[in-house]
């Protein structure tokens, strides 16, 4: 799905003389972004999406944590904040009215695994852009991009707009209300396809017929993407990672995955899915240092329409993945408290 971004500066330059009239026919969304300890969060990217036109409006918070999105056409908006070190904040619907300012303060939740050392700084170090060597993407002997290498955890470029069905929305709220105490990762269960590369570094090993993903996280775990032309099994054993096959469209590897169980969480907010889920990943290596991953989550059992998440991973050329044994001396579970 393509979305249109409206550049307000351009808009004002062209329609400057009409701004007085516009001020009457548009509304404003404004507020302050806090962290859980009440400190203001500067430079946080704030994004509002008009739910009827899909137009995107963006700003970043001031040094005092304030944001203002002015001249929004009246209507319903989905508000999101994807600030480094925090879980992505999502407010599914806010109604903007003409000639009025809707104040909406945002309280970001620190990303955490409940493990010593896994705080905001940890997350920032993992998910901020890293300096990478320049140069073109390496290629295989068949001329395809070679994705092999150690990659930093994926950073979210566009968290997309999940549109959960009522049961799924209720479950997300219930999980938040209970402090995410049932998160599978806390029990050393696999994080699932969208989260496995989003927290810790991972390694790709590519051959002509197989792409292997080795995850430092998750006990650890691995994933296979078959590139040998096979199809999906007719009646796959439901699994956390699903069954993945890939094919090339030019320099993009398109990975199609089915055969999921219904147990993984698609993100730290606990968005659920069903066994009907089909995930399409489009992988590109535009240059040596970067891997682009676009997930399309198509699950008519849980979402009204496909949910697209765009991420980038930076190469980590001088490091390797370590051994992460979740089950060894795991102390998370007893600290997962919620109603």
């Amino acid at each position, binding site marked *: 799905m393509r979305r249109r971004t409206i550049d307000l500066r351009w808009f004002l330059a062209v329609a400057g003389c009409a701004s007085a009239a516009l001020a009457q026919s548009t509304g404003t969304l404004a507020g302050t972004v806090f962290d859980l300890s009440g400190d203001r969060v500067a430079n946080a990217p704030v994004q509002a999406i008009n739910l009827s036109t899909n137009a995107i409006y963006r700003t970043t918070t001031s040094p005092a944590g304030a944001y203002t999105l002015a001249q929004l056409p009246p209507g319903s908006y989905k508000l999101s904040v994807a600030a480094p070190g925090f879980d992505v904040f999502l407010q599914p619907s806010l109604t903007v009215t003409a000639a009025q300012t809707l104040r909406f303060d945002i309280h970001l939740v620190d990303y955490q695994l409940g493990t010593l050392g896994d705080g905001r700084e940890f997350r920032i170090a993992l998910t901020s852009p890293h300096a990478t060597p320049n140069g073109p993407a390496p290629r295989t002997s068949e001329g395809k991009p070679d994705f*092999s290498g150690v990659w930093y955890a994926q950073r979210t470029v566009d968290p997309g707009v999940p549109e959960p069905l009522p049961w799924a929305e209720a479950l997300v709220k219930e999980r938040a209300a209970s402090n995410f105490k049932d998160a599978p990762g806390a*029990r*050393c*269960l*696999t994080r699932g396809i969208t989260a496995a590369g989003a927290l810790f570094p991972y390694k790709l*090993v*590519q*051959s002509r*017929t*197989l792409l*292997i993903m*080795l995850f430092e996280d*998750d*006990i*650890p*775990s*691995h994933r*296979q993407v078959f590139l*040998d*032309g*096979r199809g999906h*099994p007719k009646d*796959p*054993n439901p*699994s*956390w*990672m699903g069954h993945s096959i890939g094919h090339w469209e030019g320099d993009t590897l398109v990975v199609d995955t089915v055969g999921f169980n219904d*147990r993984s969480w698609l993100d730290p907010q606990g968005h659920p899915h069903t066994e009907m889920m089909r995930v399409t990943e489009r992988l590109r290596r535009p240059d040596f240092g970067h891997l682009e991953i676009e997930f399309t989550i198509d699950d008519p059992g849980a979402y009204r329409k496909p949910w697209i998440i765009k991420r980038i991973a930076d190469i980590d050329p001088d490091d*390797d993945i*370590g*051994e992460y*044994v*979740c*089950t*060894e001396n795991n102390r998370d579970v007893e600290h997962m408290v919620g109603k």
Partner: protein
Amino acid sequence: MKVCRNVISGAFLLALPAAAQWLNYPTPGVPRLPDGKPNLTAPAPKTTDGKPDLTGTWQPRFGYTGNIAKDLKPVGVPFQPWAEALYNHRVATESREDPQARCVLSGVPRENVVPYPFKILNTKGMIVILYEALHSYRQIFMDGRQLPKNPNPAWMGYSIGHWDGDTLVVESSGFVDNNWLDNNGHPGTEALRLTERFHRRDFGHIDLAMTIDDSKAYTKPWTVNLGFDYADTELIEYVCDENEKDVGHLVGK
């Protein structure tokens, strides 16, 4: 899904159908007999640089899951006294303290005797092994690097490999201090230096000669001969912590 197998030593046989249930997919490029089964005595495939290609899905040969050194009887392994006492304790308590039963990685070299298949991928500069058991993996670096001087202790250790003719020689160090080499619990320590010699003698068989050199636990190095058989199947997902019921059944004194 986890297949419980620590209590009844023979129960691993029951795990086999699980490995075959998911994908009945004949792997392309496999030499086959007229009845469609893999021709296990066909020549071993070679990589472009003329070395045997170990790529494929393999099943550890049966019989060594409980006791990796069973062929060394009656002499047995050259234990240090404390290691023998610990081994005897583990046997007497029916491996009640086995970390693997608590979903900690089987580790190396135990992965060579677990009753679950694994997949080898031979690529440029490295060999990757994906284990069905506990969804884990191992890297063997073939790019000429040396073993690290002060490695972070790991269940999988740190492995480098080179070719000796048609034999892949893998040297490993950097192991944890509380390693179990098998279900019975032959101990391994941080002093373990492991040498594995993999030889794919034909399409369907890899012979493995493995030398345990661990001066903290044993008075001298000892060698066991193991092997892997080609498995015409795919790995399935093994999530140990999902509905884990092993620990409650570990009833040794």
